[in-house]
């Protein structure tokens, strides 16, 4: 490809600026409020009224926020691994096999996420109680697994379906077993989809709080979503601490994404070579 024209470059630069500003401005607002000594009275000013780490001190030291982070990391990673594996199997089933009730299964998977979560709190609580899953992190992982699966299955199904059948067939012609084909053809090609899915599952498990709040009574097992709520009481809100805690909550998601991002790129090259 020849180098782009100057006009095109300017346009691209402008586009990048728009994307960055739209994506980052609220984040900037959060971060700058988190270091603002007068966070509660933050007005219209673009810059904070000063700089302080007091709010972070309050969140990390006094409120021991890292404990929440630890719990959430465990729960979120558990959810990501479990939902990635289970959803991929299910996605292969619906995308590559033709069987009776296939459409019914697919529609049911969609339907189960149509009920507003708020309405599910009590029935799900009773269900979890009868399964002895209350106040247990594994129980929470299983619940979040259920929340993230429908999306994960539908999403991965699209990616599996997008892999040309001819590639699989070529592998069989080369004498590969199904498992071999799965590992060396299908898996690398759906890797970008798996990444997108796992980011989604991670965020689902990471930010959820309604169920964590009702399922967990032991405060050492609260995840970050619940931890964030502790800075609100009925009549007050500690804005500085809320924003500092939100910053801490947002960071691992970004780190997780940067870590898995490489797979997006490797998925790309895999696609180019094989395709």
């Amino acid at each position, binding site marked *: 490809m020849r180098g782009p024209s100057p006009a095109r470059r300017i346009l691209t630069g402008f586009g990048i600026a728009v994307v960055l500003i739209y994506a980052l401005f609220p984040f900037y607002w959060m971060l700058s409020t988190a270091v603002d000594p007068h966070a509660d009275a933050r007005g219209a000013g673009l810059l904070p009224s000063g700089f302080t780490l007091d709010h972070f001190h309050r969140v990390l030291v006094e409120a021991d926020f890292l404990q929440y982070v630890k719990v959430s990391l465990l729960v979120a990673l558990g959810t990501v691994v479990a939902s990635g594996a289970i959803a991929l199997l299910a996605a292969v089933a619906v995308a590559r096999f033709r069987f009776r009730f296939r459409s019914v299964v697919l529609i049911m998977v969609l339907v189960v996420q149509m009920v507003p979560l708020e309405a599910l709190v009590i029935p799900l609580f009773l269900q979890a*109680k009868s399964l002895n899953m209350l106040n247990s992190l594994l129980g929470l992982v299983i619940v979040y697994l259920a929340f993230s699966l429908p999306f994960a299955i539908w999403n991965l199904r699209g990616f599996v379906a997008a892999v040309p059948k001819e590639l699989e067939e070529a592998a069989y012609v080369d004498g590969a077993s199904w498992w071999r084909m799965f590992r060396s053809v299908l898996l690398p090609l759906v890797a970008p989809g798996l990444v997108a899915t796992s980011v989604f599952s991670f965020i689902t498990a990471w930010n959820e709080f*309604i169920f964590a709040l009702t399922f967990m009574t032991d405060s050492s097992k609260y995840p970050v979503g619940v931890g964030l709520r502790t800075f609100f*009481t009925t009549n007050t809100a500690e804005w500085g601490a809320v924003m500092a805690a939100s910053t801490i909550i947002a960071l691992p998601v970004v780190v997780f994404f940067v870590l898995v991002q490489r797979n997006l790129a490797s998925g790309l090259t895999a696609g180019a070579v094989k395709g």
Partner: protein
Amino acid sequence: MIARRTVLAGGAASAAALGLAACGSDSSKGSGTDGKGKTLTLWIMEGTNPSTDAYIADLKKKFKEATQADLTVEVQPWDGAHDKFVNVMGGDSAPDVAEVGTTWTPEFADAGGLDPIGDELEEAGLSGKYVKALKESATLEGEVFGAPWYAGVRSILANKDLLSAAGVDKQPGNWQELLDAAQALKKKDPSTIPFPISGGSPFGLLPFIWGAGGEIAKQSGDTWKAAIADSPAVEGVTWYTDIALKHKLSTPAASTWKETDALAAFQKGDVGMFITGSWVPATIKEKSPELYDKLMAFTIPAKDSEVAPSFLGGSHLCRFTGTKEPELAFELIKLMTTGEFAANWAKQTNFFPGEQSALDEVVTSGDDLTAVFAKQMTEGGKSVPVTPLWGQVEGKKTIPNLLNTVLTGGKDAATACQDAAKEMDQIFDD
């Protein structure tokens, strides 16, 4: 409500029987040392006390000394707390004792989640020791379902600089004087908000309904009937909202403000005076000491007098019906709501203690600001209708909706009050 008694009778009796059977021989020895090897679970709300951990450590130690029983304390965030209580009540995961917001107590009691403690309070000689209005809010059909722990009340907090610049320096003796003060503020500096009318805060409106001699609802026999469309109440609503609509002493933005928003604007120096809780001065002291020095407090005036009734809200400590140790649970409630632990909690949280003697001490030893709020509390402390159905009126946001409708000019006060009354009556009649 009839069904409640059977459940309570069943639940409480069996729980009490279990407790008695378990410690029969020990308790005959008379001392409070019957809790060996037992563990109680206590839930308290997050964020009320900045030094919760130290308080809990002390409490555990003292409780162990007094009863030999262990105490597990679980701190629950306010947010979503109602759902959580609802989910666990009656089950194994329910606590033995928990802090319950005063407006929730009747609802939970009616549903059969709370265990009455009136007789035990009587026996322990505590019956008359609590702040009256707070005990009333735990009393349903003659039974007491919780012991007052701490409470707060709303009064007016003002910025001394802005006030003295406008020549305002004394407690308004009635509505007219309050209006005069706000108008003086406006005249001096048109850019300030003299007296914001927060649409999202029903607790600002109530003192004016009550201060005009009105009521939200009245009880007759077993049932409640809305009184918010009666003429004194309508007068209060009209007068309060006219501050914004007719006299322009609020700001349009305030029609969706909650108390926290008004506080934020006040901290920025945009607000002359506003209605807020008794715990707020301490928050301001911690966050901006320079503003704290400029604080001034007034009681919310009634139509013709200095002190209007103001909502007294706080928390009870309640025993849950699922407890297997009702006696120990009561010991814990007693320990926390009286004496040293009651006083310390109040001091650490900047709320008022629920025990009258501790409250008196706070009032005599406290500063000017505290004295004003305490005056409002002792002379005007009032609770919302004590009925299990009140929770629904709160959940339906009937009063914020009324305020919002009038403030945005959707309806005039009288019509909006009638709609609100209709809505409440539907709930009460249900």
